């Protein structure tokens, strides 16, 4: 007698993502490893250890990530607790709001903070923030605030409020009940969020490049400096190997923490006894100041014409300036176009890969699990650098083709699709599939009717993230040599921001605002389609 059939996924179906990831990810990253570890590469790795500057870079990369993580958790934890106590609808709204900064292009955020420092006089003098480590740390808190609020806030909402109530009835104060009952149960979520924040801060590129100033360097910006400014590819590859090893270790820790995090039960009653009214307002105030101020300054400056307010900076986007190879509007159009393509690619690959990860035969499943965890942690810079040095000779001389840009963006976007789809697919009760089978659905029909239909929402959410991420992608794109007409909006913005003087600032701010609007719209679309599918990022 037959059955208990694992839904077998055809080999042909797996070929597409396997080829894609193999050619555009594994091959380039493999080339980086080969360059970094073979021949003179290995010597370069050892040279790194001897050079005091590189030791400083490595040390700085680590400690700024650690401090960024600690600061982010400290600032966002009270907000996460408050969010957990909100009604479902209010929670979704707040989640959308804090998610906008998370997907905002790094270049936009860096520009906004730079502008904020100018506007408040913090660019020079005793309390100077511009081009200091503090600027980087504040920007990292800004980006990663959403990670802690989303992950920990969801865990809070899933907690059974009656346990804290039981503690209160047994004589604990509100604070004691939180310390003794609620906090320990949130610890896995906090650990998991911290690991993600650390990883993001460790691989942060655009923010460090712009806000840190010319002298601050992390591994990421150092790879960029050697590969693009000095064209010392051997040294860059050696740095990339160090980066890759560190990131893989971090991903391993993060995955381990993620596994330990218990699935939240949606049946539980939310903890409404948390956070007094003034406490809640304090949170809202802090979040507004942190997340709102730089964006407000950004918007204000984009309309400010020196003599009043107007649209002149926006109108100027249509004409080419000397610093850009094409008008900013062309760059915006390119970015939208690439983002659409990257999204289609990322969703296609991500959906197939997720189905294989959840249902594939154990061998291919494990292979895919591994193959997908890699791009998840590998920084955009490593991906861009890998494509730069690997896909440069026939028959794979692709690095100057325009479509390599959306391909690189898709690689950065695939993990978002997988991360939203896999938990959704895993959450499908097996008896639902059996019910469909007993009602006459063949295994392939079950996959279509049940898994794909339920997973579609995850694909939509992941696709939305992929779109937003592609719109703002800077790390990988900055490595790819482009024809002038292939300019993307974040790269154009970076050029405008690095131009000294006030001349192009207004135009830069206008371009940043337009990018921000595009990204915000996609985030709200994501959140409105997400429904009850909460949990991971």
């Amino acid at each position: 007698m037959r059955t208990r059939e694992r839904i077998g996924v055809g080999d042909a179906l797996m070929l597409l993502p396997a080829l894609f990831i193999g050619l555009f990810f594994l091959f380039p990253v493999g080339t980086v490893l080969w360059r970094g570890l073979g021949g003179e590469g290995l010597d370069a790795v050892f040279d790194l250890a001897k050079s005091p500057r590189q030791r400083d870079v490595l040390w700085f990369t680590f400690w700024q990530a650690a401090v960024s993580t600690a600061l982010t958790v400290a600032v966002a934890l009270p907000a996460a607790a408050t969010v957990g106590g909100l009604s479902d609808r209010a929670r979704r709204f707040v989640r959308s709001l804090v998610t906008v900064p998370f997907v905002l292009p790094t270049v936009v955020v860096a520009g906004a903070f730079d502008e904020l420092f100018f506007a408040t006089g913090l660019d020079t003098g005793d309390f100077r923030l511009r081009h200091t480590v503090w600027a980087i740390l504040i920007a990292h808190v800004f980006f990663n605030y959403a990670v802690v609020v989303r992950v920990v806030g969801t865990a809070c909402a899933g907690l059974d409020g009656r346990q804290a109530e039981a503690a209160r009835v047994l004589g604990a104060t509100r604070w004691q009940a939180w310390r003794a009952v609620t906090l320990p149960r949130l610890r896995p979520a906090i650990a998991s969020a911290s690991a993600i924040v650390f990883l993001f801060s460790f691989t942060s590129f655009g923010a460090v490049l712009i806000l840190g100033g010319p002298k601050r360097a992390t591994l990421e910006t150092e790879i960029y400096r050697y590969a693009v400014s000095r064209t010392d590819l051997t040294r860059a590859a050696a740095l990339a190997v160090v980066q890759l090893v560190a990131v893989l270790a971090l991903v391993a820790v993060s995955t381990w923490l993620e596994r330990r995090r218990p699935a939240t039960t949606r049946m539980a009653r939310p903890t409404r006894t948390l956070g007094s009214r003034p406490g809640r307002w304090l949170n809202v105030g802090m979040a507004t100041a942190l997340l709102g101020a730089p964006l407000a300054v950004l918007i204000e400056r984009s309309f400010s014409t020196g003599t009043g307010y107007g649209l002149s900076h926006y109108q100027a986007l249509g004409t080419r300036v000397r610093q850009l190879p094409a008008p900013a509007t062309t760059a915006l159009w390119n970015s939208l176009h690439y983002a659409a393509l990257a999204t289609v690619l990322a969703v296609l690959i991500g959906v197939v890969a997720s189905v294989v990860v959840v249902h594939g035969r154990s061998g291919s499943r494990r292979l895919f699990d591994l193959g997908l965890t890699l791009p998840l942690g590998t920084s955009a810079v490593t991906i861009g650098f890998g494509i730069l040095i690997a896909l440069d000779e026939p028959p794979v001389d692709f690095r100057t083709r325009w479509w390599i840009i959306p391909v690189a963006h898709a690689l950065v976007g695939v993990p978002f699709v997988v991360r939203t789809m896999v938990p959704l697919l895993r959450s499908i009760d097996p008896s639902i599939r059996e019910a469909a089978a007993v009602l006459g659905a063949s295994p392939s029909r079950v996959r279509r009717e049940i898994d794909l239909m339920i997973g579609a929402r995850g694909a939509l959410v992941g696709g939305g993230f992929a779109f937003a991420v592609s719109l703002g992608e800077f790390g990988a794109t900055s490595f790819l040599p482009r024809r002038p007409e292939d300019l993307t909006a974040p790269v154009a913005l970076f050029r405008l921001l690095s131009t000294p003087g006030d001349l192009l600032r207004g135009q830069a701010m206008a371009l940043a605002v337009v990018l921000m609007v595009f990204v915000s719209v996609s985030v709200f679309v994501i959140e409105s389609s997400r429904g009850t599918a909460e949990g991971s990022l």
Partner: protein
Amino acid sequence: MLRVDALTVRFGDVTAVDDVSLELAAGERLAVLGSSGCGKSTLLRAIAGLEAGDGTVSVDGADLTHTAPDRRPIGLMFQDHALFPHRTVEQNVAFGLRMAGKKESARTRRVREMLALVGLEGFGEREIATLSGGEAQRVALARALAPAPKVLLLDEPLGSLDRYLRERLIDELPDVLGATGTAAIHVTHDHDEAFAIGDRLAVMHAGKVLQVGSPGEVWAAPTSITVARVLGHTNEIIDGVTKVVWRADAMTIDPSGPHQAMVDRVHFRGVDHDVRLRTHDGRMLRFLLDDPPAAGNDVRFSIDPARVLRFD
């Protein structure tokens, strides 16, 4: 019509279903009674084709042993309903019809018919998440019946309902099955439910079917002490080498009766009383009486020999 022959399902070292053979006539309802973990759910899953095992399953003479679940003319109603959360009530009920390639007009008609049959007219557009337990249960029944399976398997279908709903559905379920003429195997751990729903009763224990017969026959003459226990008999007395069971309705208070015990406690049950007695050697006995003695007193009683079961 349905024939199960020497069916055995093993999970590693555990034999969940042990050499079970059953037969089901067209339109007949068989109740399978057993405590939790006795293998009755696995038996249903194996008949539906969801578990692999040894032995054969056939319907109307056609051997289905190697047929995939989606190609068997057998329906299964799951214990927790397993409704599709991403579809409406109507889409849930129509699913099997769609799989069978029925036209939309035919589907719509059949869905309306089925929803009317289970008393849910006008529920078609509702989301699954908005249904109460009883409503979800009826949707699951309508969904299982819609493709007109030759045999419907029901796995503890009333298990998650409150008492009031259970009793109502125990009345309705045979009517609905009778209206469609569907043969059914109804699995339950509750003997009242099994007696009410089954034309025949099969008692299952540790993977084996121990006795099959009409509910009246099985109740009156269990073939072993294990069957008696599954049926809810608790008053076991050892009389030499034979085991004797006093049915709960066997006792009469009788000042000159041969037995004596202390009345431990009395539960009022509405129609009658559930009386617990403690004998002088510490054994607990349970009887149902209309006029109970007062708790704490000693009482003498006699036992109706016609209501005593003996096992050698």
